[in-house]
């Protein structure tokens, strides 16, 4: 029994000293692990292999703008972004990423083909969402989303791509902006989204999810 434990301990020590495998590693604290490896071995578990997440619990990252991805990963790392969906999953994974790895991850996802989602929600809602996206809600002081996110919602530098995003994720994040200060880097959205009703939010989210297919 004792010899077995000693043999196991010795084997474990030898393995941990000499068996790093950076090309297929899931180590989130090793600067030698390439960003593409992290994307494939770690991030893909939730966000999909090419940045298209199966579950709406997790945002699609494919074709997202590089500056936005860098700002979010940096925000998770510094804990400035602290919405529950963010800190529950992302604080720990991002805590020891190097700036090179963050830049590499952002470049990897920015370079992927955009996600095409199924169209969900009724056509009236999607039409109403389209109107809000293109023109805002004038009497509530809500500006057009397209003004910052682009006419095709492809995003623009720090303004994220919204086209093809999970509607459920968009609805929840608009709620975070409206009701909390958990995403200070997006504080402009608190003012922008202030006048949106829950129905407005659901409509615009349904439109954006369907967008690449429309």
């Amino acid at each position, binding site marked *: 029994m004792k010899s077995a434990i000693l043999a196991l301990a010795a084997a474990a020590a030898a393995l941990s000293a000499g*068996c790093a*495998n950076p090309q297929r590693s*899931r180590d989130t604290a090793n600067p030698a692990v390439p960003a593409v490896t992290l994307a494939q071995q770690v991030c893909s*578990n939730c966000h999909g*292999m*090419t940045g298209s997440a199966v579950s709406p*619990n997790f945002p699609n990252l494919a074709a997202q703008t590089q500056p936005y991805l860098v700002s979010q990963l940096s925000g998770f790392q510094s804990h400035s972004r602290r919405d529950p969906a963010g800190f*529950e999953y992302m604080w720990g994974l991002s805590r020891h990423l190097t700036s090179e790895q963050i830049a590499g991850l952002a470049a990897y996802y920015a370079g992927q083909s955009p996600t095409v989602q199924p169209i969900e929600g009724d056509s009236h809602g999607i039409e109403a969402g389209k109107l809000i996206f293109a023109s805002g809600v004038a009497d509530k002081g809500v500006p057009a989303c397209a003004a910052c996110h682009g006419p095709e919602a492809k995003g623009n530098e720090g303004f994220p791509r919204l086209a093809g995003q999970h509607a459920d994720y968009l609805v929840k994040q608009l709620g975070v902006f409206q009701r909390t200060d958990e995403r200070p880097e997006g504080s402009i959205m608190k003012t922008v989204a202030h006048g949106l009703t829950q129905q407005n939010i659901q409509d615009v989210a349904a439109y954006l999810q369907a967008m690449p297919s429309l």
Partner: protein
Amino acid sequence: MPISIDDARAFVAKHLQPMLAVAMLAGALLPGSAHAIPAFNRQTGQNCVACHAGGQFPELTPYGRLFKMTAYTLGERAMPISAMVVASHSKVADPSKSDDPGADFQKDNKLILATASLLIGGKLTDNIGAFTQITYDPYATQDADGNFHGHSNADNIDIRYADRFISGSRDLIFGVSANNNPSVSDPWNTAAAWMQYVPVPSPTGSRFIDGNAPYPGYGAGGNIAGLTAYAYWNQTLYAEIGGYGTSRGMSSFMSAGLDGASTTKLRGVNPYWRLALNHEWGPHNLMVGAAGMTARVYDDPLDTSDPASTHKFTDLSLDAQYQYLLDPHAVTAQFVYTRNHHRYPAALADQPAPFFDASGAATLANTNAEDTNHVLRARLSYVYQATYGGSVGLFSLTGTTNTANQTAGYDSTGTLVRADGPASNLSGNPATKGWTLEAFCMPIQYARVGLQYTIYTRFNDASTNYDGLGRNARDNNTLFFYTWLAY
């Protein structure tokens, strides 16, 4: 005597409220962020909900399954030790119908420290990780004076190596697991080793809680040594194959703490296999699978000299699991059916029955050469905001009648005797059916308090008078309260 609403109310006031208060206080004092939590959380820095469906450990999310299949290596090396403690209280509907209620229901209606575990787990290298559990049972043995004595031994052990080949749209995980319990390596919680999700305390007072009701299992049991190899292709097809033998020599740590008489002795290498199909779409995921094992177990663990003295168990399982996971909702539906075939060693087959007929004059049929049992388990659970949850479970065991199963019967004078207290079996048939209802709360992510009520509609193949002395299946209905802490 059935449990009344007043009984339940008094039970909650006496035990649930103070323990909830303690859990709430702990919640207020402990940091609410993703720091300083059990070993895997320290390693990934993530909350329990990332890997556990609705935070309901040990049930895994698709992400948790990938974490396990990639050998617990995601994240960074961290302090690998966690502890787990379960305190519980159970109250059986009728402890009076028994030859010796004091001995048969010793810890009934008493708060006990049910079990404590030390968990050592996590990333060792980029490809190797472990999940090992050492469990302390405060009620492991009982001396002649009726005092219980505690004991620690190896519980679940899973040490694995995995590699993942991923590019474009192709994804292949390949791994090897050294483990001590068939299906403990399985990533789905319908596996026999994981379906029973609340630890079972030993004391006799808790013998009728859900954890002791029929569960699917492999005839080989645990504390054996196995090596399995598995592959998971495109997150769609899972296949695992391996073999188990006696834990000895280099693998003796798999049964550490158990003496020779308590260690399962297997003849040769015994095959285990598992196939599962998985599909994920939107917030849904579905698995349908099958698993099986053939095991030859020596009748006497202390005498393995005669190869003919082995029981041969052949187990086949069909299982399915559906999950809907979209914050704040987590729904899980599970189904398992297991067919267990048991062939007795020749020396135990076709033997005179231990009991007589009611007159005491004629002997009963000889014991069987083989038995077949069928276990069915289904469970539906819901968790809201990873905090409040509930479940409904169904269990059904049916099987062959065998006079060897009888633990109650007539002796040669025609007197009815019971050899297994209130669980004594007069029919020789194991059929036991019922339901379990549960409500639970996780005030903080490392604590769960739960209240279960287990309802028996059939026990030892009878709904009434199953022991011949008037004990009914419903007399075993049990209210069970537990607090489960992991840190």
